[in-house]
């Protein structure tokens, strides 16, 4: 795959101009996590709407590769207006479809870092279910 196929315009755009960038003050949910493929980290914060369930605002910050940061930026657009329960069970395939390029198992971990951290944040705030691979880890 050529570099321009892998680093599609949309990915470079989200990387250089990440949406919802900046952690929210007084967030209702928050978590921070690292990629086992070392060198990526994200912090994700969420504010719910009046019903306490629907995601009203997402804010994230991070340091990492184009895939991890762009994917998290795309994620923030994807989950707008969804409930905590819906996001907790959001299949990673939906996010990967947005990213739109085939990813090796190693780069996959970059792409789903933000999603995992968001799910941890929701789990800690609302007790929503957590995927197996995110159980039992030590999170800030």
């Amino acid at each position: 795959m050529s570099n321009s196929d892998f680093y599609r315009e949309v990915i470079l755009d989200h990387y250089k101009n990440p949406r919802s960038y900046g952690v929210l003050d007084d967030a209702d949910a928050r978590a921070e996590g690292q990629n086992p493929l070392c060198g990526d980290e994200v912090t994700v914060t969420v504010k719910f709407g009046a019903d306490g369930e629907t995601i009203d605002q997402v804010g994230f910050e991070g340091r990492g590769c184009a895939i991890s940061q762009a994917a998290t930026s795309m994620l923030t657009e994807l989950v707008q207006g969804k409930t905590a329960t819906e996001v907790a069970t959001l299949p990673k395939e939906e996010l990967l479809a947005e990213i739109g390029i085939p990813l090796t198992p190693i780069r996959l971990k970059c792409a789903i870092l933000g999603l995992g951290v968001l799910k941890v944040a929701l789990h800690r705030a609302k007790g929503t279910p957590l995927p197996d691979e995110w159980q039992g880890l030590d999170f800030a």
Partner: protein
Amino acid sequence: MLDARKSRADFPILEQLVHGKPLAYLDSAASAQKPRQVIEAMSTFYETSYANVHRGVYELAERATQALEDAREKVRGFVNAPSAREVIFVRNATEALNLVAYSWGLNNLGPGDVVLVTELEHHSNFVPWQFAARRTGADFRLIPLDNQGELRLDELDSFGNVKVVATGLVSNALGTINDAAAIAAWAHERGAIYVCDAAQAAPHVRIDVQALGADFVAVSGHKMCGPSGIGFLWGRSELLLAMEPFLMGGHMIRKVTTGETTWGELPAKFEAGTSPMAEAVGLGAAIDYLEGIGLEAIEQHEHALAAYALEQLGEITGVTLYGPPPDRRAGIVSFNVDGVHPHDVAQVLDADGIAIRAGHHCCQPLMGRLGVAATNRASFYLYTISEEIDRLAAGVRRARDLFA
């Protein structure tokens, strides 16, 4: 003078294309490729001489035992150890260092003692000592780095009641070469032991454990053209004799009763269970291969490549280089590209068939000290040629421009 092009012919894996381009393998610090000679030595062993060792009376078992002990003697000679009894086969340097931290550390440290490692250490020579300190109540301290990535040995006297100093000989992240002999001497003056992580050194520079003055030296076979799954710990016999075993079970015992068990002699005491026999044979063949080329020739070859790489990469706008100048480092270059994360640099290089490492290189404390999340690392070995460095430089420019 080493002829890298000639050596490359010994390495079948280097002939392949990756994404249609010739493979440029610049990640030997992570693991080295294997020459045919090593692969064939192991296949031959499996095909002709394989049996479990040390116990069988039959012909095949005798041959297998001889092959294992021949490999041990080769290791002894490779590092100039006084005795083969002091050469303990383990899985890798990580296991060797854990062995010392558990068997020596947990029984010789206590409150008021200081365990001293460095900011440069690979996690395998950091985490086991941190654990041993926590378990025993000892203090865990680090020799700091200067801004060129070299150890501040002038700080040594500030650390108090040091009982063990553990450092690498060559840094896997920056290529820094530490003055291990000086550290060993300082440690001994204070009644401390010195543990040397030689995983990144043994493949590339001549090691003489007697000249080094270390008490323990850890080596990984897979980094020196040997197979995965074998490494060794060299240790002073008086220390090994006094230590409790690490792993226990078959072979490392003398007598086992319900009441008690007594330990076997060296090196068996530290080699529980079935040995990695074919792997040891492979390691022996790797030693023969490296000695055939000459460690000094390998070291010179890599110094030249490191100097060339630092020069080529140094000319690229936006590249930051880390670590000491070429005359004080091994064949390892860590760098970053402004605005491009190492994973992305490595991804772009991969599209051109170039393999480098991107990440924290199992050195998170060092990354913290450098103020970065990760770096790119290119590392060289006896089969690396300068064209590969030219391709690396071109790829780095491409990555920079893609993300501009």
